[in-house]
């Protein structure tokens, strides 16, 4: 049997392996013509920003072989974002997590957000782009219905810890469940272990994704920090199963 295109009713879903993960794009079927540009963009980001490719701009810049002025101009944009977030997070977000230049903690969210901008520029008003568990969405998946985003339980595979609903927002989650302990507190050099996962919601995925990484490194003190950061909210699951959330977090417990 010939494979069927991924379309539910009037929706198109596409899953693209890129950047070491899979990016899922959910758009109206009528907007299918906007998809190739998004995929081209994601693969370009992969080639340009991957620290795992020796010939990427990021790798060459990190080794001092390529001056910033000769890199893709987007690298300067990313570095600017990184600097702002490093300051807002009190240095918990860093572009040199292992002592080597690696802005990956921001690039994925940023590239998904830019992909969303491409969709918006193409006139797509309803979309959800999910890059390996960090996503940004706009509009409604069906008339009158907000997006409903499940936050995966880091402790109970297959269950959601909470559901976030909304129309134009980003959701990013950091945790150890998928890849084991890998986020370091840059101030102590220790692997972060206070939390099982932390989810950040807010208007932009670039920021939410980097905040989630930083907040995971902060641990429980991220609650007070996130309360003070305008526009972004946090929800955390602790290793003992208890959860906490900031006062404006747009979700329900379950």
């Amino acid at each position: 049997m010939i494979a069927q295109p991924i379309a539910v009713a009037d929706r198109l879903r596409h899953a693209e392996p890129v950047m070491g993960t899979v990016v899922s794009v959910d758009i109206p079927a009528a907007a299918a013509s906007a998809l190739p540009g998004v995929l081209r963009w994601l693969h370009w980001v992969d080639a340009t920003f991957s620290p795992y490719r020796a010939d990427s701009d990021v790798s060459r810049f990190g080794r001092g072989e390529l001056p910033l002025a000769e890199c893709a101009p987007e690298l300067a944009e990313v570095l600017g974002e990184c600097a702002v977030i490093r300051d807002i997070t009190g240095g918990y977000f860093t572009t040199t997590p292992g002592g080597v230049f690696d802005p990956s903690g921001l690039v994925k969210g940023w590239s998904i957000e830019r992909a969303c901008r491409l969709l918006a520029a193409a006139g797509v008003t309803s979309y959800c782009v999910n890059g390996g568990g960090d996503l940004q969405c706009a509009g409604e998946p069906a008339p009158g219905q907000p997006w409903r985003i499940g936050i995966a339980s880091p402790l109970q595979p297959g269950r959601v810890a909470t559901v976030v609903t909304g129309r134009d927002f980003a959701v990013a989650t950091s945790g150890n469940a998928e890849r084991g302990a890998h986020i370091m507190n840059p101030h102590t050099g220790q692997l972060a272990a206070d939390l099982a996962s932390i989810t950040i919601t807010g208007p932009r995925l670039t920021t939410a994704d980097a905040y989630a990484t930083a907040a995971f490194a902060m641990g429980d003190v991220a609650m007070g920090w996130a309360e003070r950061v305008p526009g972004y909210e946090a929800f955390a699951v602790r290793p003992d199963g208890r959860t906490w959330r900031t006062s404006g977090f747009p979700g329900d417990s379950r």
Partner: protein
Amino acid sequence: MRRAILALSSTIAGLVLLLSFKTHIPGSTDTGTTAASGSGGAGAGSADMAGAGHAARAGHAGRPGNAAHKARRPPGAATRTVTGTVADTTYGPMQVQVTLAGQSITSVKVLQRTDTGAESDQIDASAIPRLVNETLAVQSAHINAVSGASYTSAGYQRSLQSALDKASA
């Protein structure tokens, strides 16, 4: 305690079954791969920003989502089955089939449990209903997408974002 460990192991094995859902057209015995180019690719030739170098954990799998209007099926919504590939688990080959009405998962069925050893039976009995329950539990959340700790290309195959994507076929 041993039972708990077995249950956990088998749940993990069971959740692995959710990998690589493929479209099954009723009346056909073939399972054509969906247009989800995510299946099978597993990051071949892809850079590893998400850290595929880390061993992805089988334990963190299933997270199904669903379109929000699950409860109100459009009249005449097609019932379809989505069949997982046969997964080789520690306990032998296993395969599940999910039935959907419109965008709603209505049942999860185990198609294949060829290892009939006593231990496997014991595990199946405890783990498989649990897998079904978990799947439906998330189904009942009526979600469109899932946010979670970043998964790799390989991890995606086990994620229920993957099942969600492929169930849309």
